[in-house]
């Protein structure tokens, strides 16, 4: 049975459902799994774990990828 839960994805609160995995979240957000890194409550997940790890109420998910940048910047582009 699936209950409505609240999670944080990239800093934003989001309605979600219990029992769903990281893979389910990526699919719903239309994010291809290659070249992204996922951090679940500060733990960096192995790509093979995406399909098994369920996201629980209150979990914090960070989905990271590569953007343009050379050297340091405080803004979006380095």
């Amino acid at each position: 049975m699936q209950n409505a839960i609240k999670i944080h994805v990239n800093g934003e609160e989001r309605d979600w459902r219990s029992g769903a995995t990281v893979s389910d979240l990526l699919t719903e957000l239309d994010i291809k799994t290659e070249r992204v890194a996922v951090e679940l409550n500060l733990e960096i997940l192995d790509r093979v774990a995406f399909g098994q790890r369920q996201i629980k109420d209150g979990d914090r998910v960070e989905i990271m990828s590569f953007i343009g940048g050379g050297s340091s910047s405080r803004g979006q582009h380095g």
Partner: protein
Amino acid sequence: MADDRLIIAGREFKSRLWVGTGKYKDFVETKKAIELSGADVVTVAVRRVNITDRSKENLLDYIDPKKYTILPNTAGCYTVEDAVRYSRLARAAGVSDLVKLEVLGDERTLFPDTAGLIEAAKILVKEGFIVLPYTNDDPIVAQKLVDVGCPAVMPLAAPIGSGLGIRNPYNLKIIMEMIKVPIIVDAGVGTASDAAFAMELGADAVLMNTAIAGAQDPLAMAEAMKYAVHAGRLAYKAGRIPRKLYATASSPIEGML
């Protein structure tokens, strides 16, 4: 110069010009500039995926990781913890074990926190990363970075994005003479002559972003940088004449009236 290869941690690099991918107008310009520069190493930053606007394209759709060595950086990290976290995320994102390590000490100058840099490098080397640290033009710090296992060192020429050129050629020269790993001059280049100068000093490569992306015509500057780095390298290998205060005639006296 066919056998003039740059090898770092067993990897061979064809180009001695490395480029960043920030500050371009769009991905098409980024791609064109990189092609014209001839660079085969491109740096990228690690950031949150935009989950609200999925129509946004991905940089790596334009920069093929099969064609280029993607060098993720820890740009924007001010603590050892953050730099290590971003490095691990970069590796988890599946490009490579390479990281251009930055641990910054100050927002205005973007100068590195060298104590933090050495500490972060130590942790990441132990985890199997190939750590290329962005550091000051300080020979002692450069040596410490080598001692903890960095296979190359990247001293700055001037503050990031400043375009001031080579501010302390003597320190850079000392680093190049003292340090027995490849030296990549990173940050501060403003124009082609700066890049040539860095290579003439004996740098193994030059990394730049703003000098190209911020030029009036980034594509033309990308090409200029390619030639500058090549010319500087050739001049370094050729060995320049010594500087002398007075003239030395280059035409013979014999046969004059």
